[in-house]
């Protein structure tokens, strides 16, 4: 308790406020991310069974045979059917691409549906599914279709009355595919829509619920009979993909939070050094009075632990608020109810506070126990007590350990640690060359200049630390705010103005001529591509098992049907990188060309035999070439292409893409009315959605960057505190020598301007350089060097440091010279 009392006395004396603030900011960053990730991940886990709306689900490319359902019921299982497909809903005044879902009685078997009788009314749990002839639609469709409850809409060949607002369905799914608005109808109406031709993109599911043994017995028997034709989904299967994405996001945000911890750590190192210097005499007095080294150490450890408790708690409180803000920013993407916040992030907060204080502060304070008691008689003793690089070394080890904790992988930890240290070292090197350059230059420029530059050049090490700390904060902010925008613009600029903006899919073979005619009449030139939807069931005659793959993407590819096509000529945006394409061969034998990244993902190489299955038929062919594809051309492209005739045994549909000017959208409306099963995809709106996701996601990261900047400002203030006595003395001396207050303030202002402008310009430069590397390496985009970013950076840095530094240093220049001199 003595440690607590001493801590309180230190706090009252203003000794530890910056230190505590640095810990609060670091803890806020870590706990904010922790709470966000925990709640989103918790929602995913808790809803794993709900996500299926069943205990198990059987997916089948064809309508579920009726005897399957009868059999399951005989075995005591509850069953329901669903069918989900993209289509267009048409009303009198509008049409819209939607995701239709037909459900049968008893749906959902797990979880609940929620509807509103009217827009804005309270949610209720419906007793049944939509009655035949009725549809429930998502709230945003009311506006998009300009429709109200009780009015009608058309899906394919059938009219439906809108009878409720669909506010929640358990198995809605997550991610990009589920962004199209939902229309829910009764399974009994499915055939009447006439939307389900052969090869159309429908996911038929048989939902099952019951005791685990019964469900497994049934699904095992079904799997034995139908093998690869069916796909059995389990709750854990549903949760895993989402969990993996969340885990990656958590790791990324966790490492972003660590940047704040590192910068805050620098503030801790600086303030604790200053604090320790002021404690040496006090400790010497205590030791003279009989305190042992052990006692001194336990007092300081005790102080730090109490401080960790308070600052950790306050930081966690701030982190809780931060996570609420981040949740609000991504509310649209989550769109689900989250579990209540748990207590674990609070423990994480205290751990972080403890690690920050024991890792960054204790190595310095530990030395105080060796304060020589003789110092009470001879002030010069013990003045070198705090020298040496051990605290820096310990801090580096603690940072590395924290990174390992967040990344959970030694390779990622090593590369992030190297990247962060490299960036810091580079920033420090450039800052040091500027500061020392200015110092050398000012020496040769006469007395007046020397005076003007004194604050900045007389404390070069402090200046460099301040520049780097503020620079890191500004850099992450610029990277997110400026460079992200530039990258998106550069990407959009690369898309040719006449790049296809409309895709038509699900065109049946007998509709191709008609669709082509309609488009020709409208002056739209198109190419039609055949498309087969099939699953890769064998690789070199061995069954493909999704579980054998590590990455979620590969598992998804191995499990799902995907699109195949055939052609006799290679498109201009495709390049063969291995083997030969068959364009020059007449009537080539069955063979395949595979896109390189896809091949790598699922482990396919030249000479491999791939077997594809669709609608009960299978085709096997050899891979004879690998292709690179320029996806950004926005043309129609496929992972797997076959030579003509290879897929003749499989059911196919057609697709096409074209550019349609905005004023010609009526052409699309006419087409949809004439061919209701054809599904149009508007790329412009897809791009808009992608942009929204990126914007919302990066705003979350921007919050983290703001915290890093706040930590950078703390470093600035900590450095000001350290130099405070020196500034007080300089100011008193200059005043005594006749300098006016305005002149002294102008000198301080110039110092802040220089530090801020250099930090900002460096941050702009580093962010632009990072942007250029990202553009070149990841996106293959031209990203021009923009000097304006440097100018903006310098301006923002100047204002930030001027404001913070001016406030922080004001007191050093305010006191009268008499008082200053008397205080020494």
């Amino acid at each position, binding site marked *: 308790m*003595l440690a607590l*009392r001493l801590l309180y*006395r*230190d706090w*009252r*004396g203003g*000794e530890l406020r910056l230190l505590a603030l640095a810990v609060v900011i670091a803890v806020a960053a870590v706990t904010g991310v922790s709470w966000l990730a925990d709640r989103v991940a918790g929602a995913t886990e808790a809803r794993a069974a709900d996500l299926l709306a069943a205990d198990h689900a059987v997916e089948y490319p064809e309508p579920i045979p009726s005897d399957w359902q009868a059999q399951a019921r005989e075995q005591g299982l509850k069953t329901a059917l669903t069918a989900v497909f993209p289509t267009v809903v048409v009303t009198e005044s509008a049409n819209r691409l939607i995701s239709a879902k037909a459900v049968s009685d008893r749906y959902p078997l797990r979880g609940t549906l929620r509807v509103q009788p009217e827009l804005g009314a309270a949610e209720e749990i419906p007793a049944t599914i939509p009655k035949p002839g009725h549809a429930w639609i998502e709230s945003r469709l009311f506006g998009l279709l300009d429709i109200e409850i009780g009015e009608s809409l058309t899906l394919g060949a059938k009219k439906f009355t809108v009878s409720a607002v669909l506010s929640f369905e358990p198995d809605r799914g997550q991610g990009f595919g589920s962004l199209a608005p939902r229309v829910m109808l009764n399974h009994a109406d499915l055939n009447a829509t006439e939307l389900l031709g052969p090869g159309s993109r429908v996911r038929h599911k048989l939902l099952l619920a019951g005791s685990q043994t019964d469900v497994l017995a049934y699904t095992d028997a079904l799997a034995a009979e139908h093998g690869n034709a069916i796909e059995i989904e389990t709750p854990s299967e549903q949760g895993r993909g989402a969990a993996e994405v969340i885990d990656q996001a958590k790791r990324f945000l966790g490492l972003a939070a660590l940047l704040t911890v590192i910068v805050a750590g620098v503030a801790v190192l600086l303030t604790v050094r200053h604090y320790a210097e002021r404690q040496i*005499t*006090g400790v010497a*007095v*205590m*030791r*003279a*009075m*009989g*305190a*042992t*080294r*052990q*006692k001194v150490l336990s007092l300081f450890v005790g102080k730090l632990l109490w401080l960790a408790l308070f600052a950790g708690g306050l930081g966690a409180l701030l982190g809780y608020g931060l996570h609420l803000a981040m949740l609000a920013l991504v509310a649209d993407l989550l769109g689900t109810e989250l579990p209540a916040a748990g207590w674990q992030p609070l423990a994480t907060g205290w751990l972080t506070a403890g690690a920050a204080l024991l890792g960054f502060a204790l190595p310095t304070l530990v030395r105080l126990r060796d304060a*020589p*008691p*003789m110092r*009470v*008689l*001879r*002030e010069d003793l013990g003045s070198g007590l705090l020298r040496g690089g051990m605290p820096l070394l310990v801090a580096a080890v603690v940072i590395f350990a924290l990174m390992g904790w967040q990344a959970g992988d030694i390779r990622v930890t090593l590369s992030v640690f190297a990247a962060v240290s490299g960036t810091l070292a580079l920033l420090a090197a450039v800052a040091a060359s500027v500061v020392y350059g200015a110092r050398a230059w000012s020496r040769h420029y006469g007395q007046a200049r020397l005076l003007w530059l004194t604050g900045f050049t007389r404390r070069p090490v402090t200046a460099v630390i301040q520049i780097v700390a503020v620079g890191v904060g500004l850099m992450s902010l610029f990277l997110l705010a400026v460079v992200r925008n530039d990258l998106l613009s550069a990407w959009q600029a690369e898309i040719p103005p006449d790049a296809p903006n409309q895709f038509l899919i699900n065109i049946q073979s007998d509709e191709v001529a008609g669709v082509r005619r309609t488009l020709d009449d409208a002056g739209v030139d198109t190419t039609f591509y055949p498309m087969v939807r099939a699953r890769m069931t064998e690789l070199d005659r061995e069954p493909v098992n999704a579980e054998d793959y590590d990455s979620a993407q590969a598992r998804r590819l191995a499990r799902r049907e995907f699109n195949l096509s055939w052609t006799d000529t290679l498109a201009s945006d495709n390049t063969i990188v291995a083997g030969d394409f068959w364009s020059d061969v007449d009537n080539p034998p069955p063979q395949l060309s595979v896109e390189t990244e896809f091949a790598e993902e699922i482990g396919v190489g030249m000479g491999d035999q791939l077997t594809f299955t669709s609608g009960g038929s299978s085709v096997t062919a050899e891979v004879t070439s690998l292709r690179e594809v320029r996806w950004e051309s926005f043309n129609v492209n496929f992972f797997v292409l076959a030579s003509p005739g290879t897929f003749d045994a499989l059911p196919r549909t057609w697709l096409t893409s074209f550019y349609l000017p905005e004023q010609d959208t009526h052409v699309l409306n006419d087409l949809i009315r004439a061919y209701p099963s054809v599904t149009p995809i508007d790329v412009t709106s897809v791009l808009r959605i992608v942009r929204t996701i990126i914007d919302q996601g990066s705003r979350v990261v921007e919050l983290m960057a703001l915290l890093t900047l706040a930590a950078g400002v703390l470093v600035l203030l900590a450095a000001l505190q350290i130099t405070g006595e020196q500034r007080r003395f300089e100011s008193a001396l200059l005043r005594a020598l006749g300098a006016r207050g305005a002149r002294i303030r102008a000198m301080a202002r110039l110092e802040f301007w220089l530090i801020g402008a250099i930090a900002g310009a460096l941050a702009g430069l580093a962010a632009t350089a990072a942007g250029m590397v990202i553009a070149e390496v990841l996106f293959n985009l031209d990203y021009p060097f923009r000097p304006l970013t440097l100018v903006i950076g310098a301006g923002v840095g100047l204002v930030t440091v001027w404001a913070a530094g001016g406030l922080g240093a004001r007191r050093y220049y305010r006191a009268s010279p008499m008082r200053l001199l008397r205080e020494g």
Partner: protein
Amino acid sequence: MAADSASGLEAAKGASKDSSSTGLPILQAQALGMRFAAPEGQISLFENLDFSINAGDSLAILGTSGSGKSTLLGLLAGLDLPSTGTVVMDSHDLNTLNEDERAVLRAGRVGFVFQAFHLLPGLTALENVMLPAELAGDSAARNKAAEALGRVGLSDRLLHYPAQLSGGEQQRVALARAFISEPQILFADEPTGNLDHKTGDQIIDLLFALNRDHNTTLIVVTHDQAVASRCARVRYLRNGVLTAEAG
């Protein structure tokens, strides 16, 4: 070169004004010497100093600035170890104790008053006085500190910070701090060095009054003859030699 023999001090003890003296040496120095490494080689501050002091006695060590009197005080208090010779405090040979063991020996047994006061700036007068008692785990620290400050006439300054107190008041707080743990030996290093003459006199009056009340052994180093003359014995440290004569 022992100019002042143990027997000399023992003899002088007989003339002690302090009737409560027990007659047993509480502090003994034998062949005490201190050397420092300097750029020009080893410098000897003093060598072969011998003396002892009985419980309840008061001794002043007079010397000019730089004569080594503060260093001698530090060695006697166990704050540092001598280059040669031994110090025995309360039957403990300080040379056989490490720094922490010497601290334990000092705790509650030794008090200090410094020229520079050495009050902790972030602590109130009361808290500064409480500190030694708190370090010793005394639960009545607050009451004792308030009482001690009352005795030095600062009852109305309990919650003042050192910066809000005059030099004399700060030294009175330091006196209260020194006496709160009722030490057997009080070491005072130039207690009036930072004070004007009048304030210095008041502090010395207080110091000796407290010394008498607590029956404390007092060792004062000073360059002030007036302060030294209040002690039972006076010794001069000059050119590394301790003598009984002022000459």
